């Protein structure tokens, strides 16, 4: 029983790490640009498929580095060509646009790589279990946890220590003033979008190693990521991180007792947060 509990909690942590990675990217874009990026799951799929294509040439590690960066470039390009035109307009329009993009990306990946599920090679020593008593704990899962933790740490360091991060945080609070102070807001939003998409691409590579590749691989992650943001509080990145891990672990623990409710518990948590504390756990009062 304790081993089962440990397994499900750990599993929940991994799922939570994915939610958090996705939700942090969504949150970055939402906070600075006011765009709900429905195509985030599509970018995740692009990350995974690009890595799949790159592995024969550069190996797993090369793909792990290169694929998210390439995904981020695609994101930056799309922001420049399409999404930028919609800033300052009703959020309805950017929502519809990214919604259409999600359709196009999913169908596009299906067109290029085929609809069938593709296997994803990870190094053999990562795929092996750590020990026979902890048979479920493969090296890959531990590696994912460590990598996600490192990336999240790096993200928070970038946001708190670098000039770019400072500007992103300032822009979240008052974009107009940041613009008046001489920061090129167009470039700032562009880079910020790329940063968010980078996280989605990275999540895509990691998820493909665990689940294999399908064109709709992002579908099951996008809704929980929204909920992670709502639970954690809009406008707060630490909140988003906490929200993602929290709902991941909650659904992991629920799996032990009511396996069929593991998905539902996420929505119950969202409803509870909205009733008791509509701004979310760490959200600021009156921002929305």
């Amino acid at each position, binding site marked *: 029983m304790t081993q089962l509990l440990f397994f499900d909690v750990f599993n929940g942590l991994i799922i939570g790490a994915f939610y958090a990675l996705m939700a942090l990217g969504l949150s970055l874009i939402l906070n600075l640009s006011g765009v709900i990026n429905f195509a985030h799951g599509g970018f995740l799929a692009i990350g995974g498929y690009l890595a799949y294509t790159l592995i024969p040439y550069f190996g797993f590690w090369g793909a792990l580095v290169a694929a998210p960066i390439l995904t981020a470039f695609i994101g930056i390009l799309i922001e420049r060509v399409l999404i930028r035109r919609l800033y300052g307009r009703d*959020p*309805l329009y950017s929502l519809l646009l990214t*919604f*259409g*993009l999600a359709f196009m990306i999913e*169908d596009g990946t299906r067109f290029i790589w085929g609809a069938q599920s593709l296997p994803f090679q990870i190094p053999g020593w990562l795929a092996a279990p750590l020990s026979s008593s902890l048979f479920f704990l493969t090296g890959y899962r531990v590696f994912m946890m460590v990598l996600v933790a490192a990336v999240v740490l790096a993200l928070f360091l970038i946001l708190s220590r670098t000039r770019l991060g400072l500007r992103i945080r300032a822009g979240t609070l008052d974009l107009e003033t940041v613009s008046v102070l001489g920061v090129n807001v167009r470039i700032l939003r562009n880079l910020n979008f790329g940063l968010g998409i980078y996280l989605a691409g990275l999540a895509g590579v990691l998820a493909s190693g665990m689940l294999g590749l399908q064109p709709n691989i992002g579908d099951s992650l996008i809704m929980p990521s929204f909920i992670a943001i*709502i639970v954690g509080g809009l406008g707060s990145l630490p909140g988003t991180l906490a929200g993602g891990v929290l709902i991941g672990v909650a659904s992991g623990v629920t799996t032990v007792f009511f396996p069929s409710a593991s998905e539902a518990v996420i*929505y119950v948590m*969202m409803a509870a947060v909205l009733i008791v504390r509509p701004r979310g756990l760490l959200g600021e009062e009156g921002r*929305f």
Partner: protein
Amino acid sequence: MNAFNNKRAADALVWVALLTAPYWMPLVGGYTELGTHVVILGLAAMALNFLLGFTGVLSFGHAAYFGLGAYGAAMTIKFLVPSTPLAILDGVLVGTVAGAVIGPMIARLRGVYFAMCTIAFGQVFYFIAFQWSSVTGGDDGVSAWHRMPIDLGFTSIDIFNDNKAFYYLALTMFAVAAGVMAWLLRSPFGRTLLAIRENERRARFLGIPVDRHIWLSWVISCLFASLAGALYALLNDFVDPRALRWDMSGTFVIMTVLGGMRNFWGPLIGAAIFIVLQDQLSSHTQNWESFIGLFFVLVVLFFPRGVLGLIKRKTTQ
């Protein structure tokens, strides 16, 4: 005076076109079910527009209430009573109650946050329908039932075998719903909703209970969306979780935007264009999803005011 007459003429035109649709549609290459589709999804989009266009709140999760109406109707006929009117009533009841319960949780939220929560809540019902397969049939949906002839006592209308009869049933429901919505929008309540849309802060200072009005508008919108859903299940004699999913919600929003959200008939026009396009695309190409996606992008970039918005601007210039 002129504008008033134009409006009257437009109303008359819409009703004449709708009333005679089964007779002129075959002439232009359509068929009756296509018309029924337009009327039903047009009703769903108009219900959404009550909220989106006339209250100014963005719901991106209306498929939930549409789908609940559909499931309510389908399961009533399959498991409870084989009666079409009761099925419609049940469907509307289920969808409206769900909307009324969820409403208070989101009515205080605004803008993007409101939209995001409607998306997430919309997904709840998709999961229930998908996971609880012993009752809902899971991914396979509720099948092996069909709509029942309506028994009026002295005569019976065979809406199952007669497509035209079902079209006129759907149109009757549509007319009632459209009439009620138009009446509501002309009432002081509707004017208050417009005031909230135009300037929420001012409305609040005037002492209008804004959250309660948004909640009411939300429930009314859910009510008509679930009516459309119930009719949709009856049209297909089938319902599956896709009726509840977020892409359905997006479809309602794009129909509304495409037709023109500041216009009462806009969503219906948008629904007509969208459905004919989808019908054509899906018969010509496998990759119609990417074309629909591209269509979303193009509408947002080039037709943000919709067809009717465009016409209005042309005529006022």
